[in-house]
């Protein structure tokens, strides 16, 4: 039964359903490192850290970026990611991520004594870095917003 050998995969964020399809395998960045889920995985709950999600469907590989959340693998080869935020590669706003990175770095320098702000800023930095990393990996050319110029990634 070919249907049985697939995974029903979906990524949901509080704002929308980012992805929903039947796929072959999914790689996720968890606290313990990257894991790949294949069909018939045992039920699992794990914490996701900011990073790249790789979805394989046939020959195709779909990259996405997540900003933390949780994953639940159900017994019926159903995988659900409850993400705080998630985007497809083409949706990543590089400029915004870059700004967020700079802001977070500045906060971390200035507010190093404030534990709460520091932790929040470092979490924001992780998210921004994850976005930038995924974007630069899959996009060879970047459209710089406003300037109308298509530039090579640095």
């Amino acid at each position, binding site marked *: 039964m070919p249907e049985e050998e697939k995974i029903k995969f979906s990524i949901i964020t509080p704002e929308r359903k980012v992805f929903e399809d039947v796929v072959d395998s999914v790689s996720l960045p968890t606290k313990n490192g990257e894991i790949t889920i294949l069909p018939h995985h045992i039920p699992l709950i*794990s*914490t996701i850290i900011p990073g790249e999600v790789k979805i394989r469907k046939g020959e195709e590989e779909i990259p996405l970026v997540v900003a933390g959340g949780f994953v639940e693998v159900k017994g019926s080869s159903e995988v659900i990611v409850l993400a705080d935020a998630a985007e497809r590669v083409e949706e990543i706003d590089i400029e915004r991520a870059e700004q967020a990175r700079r802001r977070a770095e500045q906060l971390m320098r200035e507010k190093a004594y404030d534990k709460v702000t520091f932790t929040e800023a470092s979490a924001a930095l992780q998210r921004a870095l994850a976005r930038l990393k995924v974007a630069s990996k899959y996009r060879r050319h970047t459209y710089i917003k406003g300037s109308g110029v298509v530039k090579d990634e640095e």
Partner: protein
Amino acid sequence: MPGEIREIKKRIKSIKSTRKITRAMEMVAAAKMRKAINNVLSTRPYAMMAWDILRRLSKFYHHHPHPLLEEREEIKRVGLILITSNRGLSGSFNSNVINLAADYIAFHKEKIEIEADLVLMGRKGAEAMVKLGHTVVAEFDKVDVTTRIHEVRPLARLIIDEYLKGTYDKISIIYTDFISTILQRPRVKQLLPISGEDPYLGHIKGEEEIKMEVYEEKDLNNNNNNNNKDIYGGYLFEPSAQEVLDDLLPRLIEIQIYQAVLESDASEHSARMVAMKNATDAAGEMIYDLTLSYNQARQSAITQEIAEIAAAKTALE
């Protein structure tokens, strides 16, 4: 009579200006409502999934004890979160939730000797609850249309902290469930302890049956991981059950509160829009009736004048 005519004219004018105001309010409410409905509908799948996980986890409480999943034996104090709106003029929106809250407290007081404390969101609820003499522990500002989850984070944190400290043994949230633009229903939902059995629970849409997947221990024994101590109730937790639950449970509870606030937002603006629409329609009807009596009065005045002139003329001849 000219005096009567002037009186009617004045009333028509004042009703017309009232209608202008209610119509403007209707438009504003409609715009806010669209935004709020959009928010609530896009968050629902997420909240539903989160609630699903919570309920499944609570089934396996004995496998992975966690203070947030624990059912306390004696319920002494109940914490209530009440979500209302800041402004009135929204039909029975606020009075419905407030009545439900009052009923809920009364119901609990009858059964067991309990104290109920309130955490409020929205100014209308605050006014009413203080008047009714209930203890208000905290009051949070409410924005008109909530869009970010950060906005409810302080409330969620307070509730979870107080629950863990043992100040409360049960926490419920009272909000208005958005069903459609013309139908909203106030409801009570028990947040803590997370219990799979409560018929009141279940997702906002509540009606659909959530299938419980119970994974048998023996199924897992066929697996290589059967000596992993983090397999409980069929779930494998990574890195560890403790760590995952510590992260997951507060987050999921926060989402439930967020969803409740969004539902209330959508309900509030829908209720206000409908109320204002009714007011505008009623004003229109009133203007119609008054115009009719105005014309009648004017006509009879003219007729009377003519009759008087005619009478005077006949008298002269």
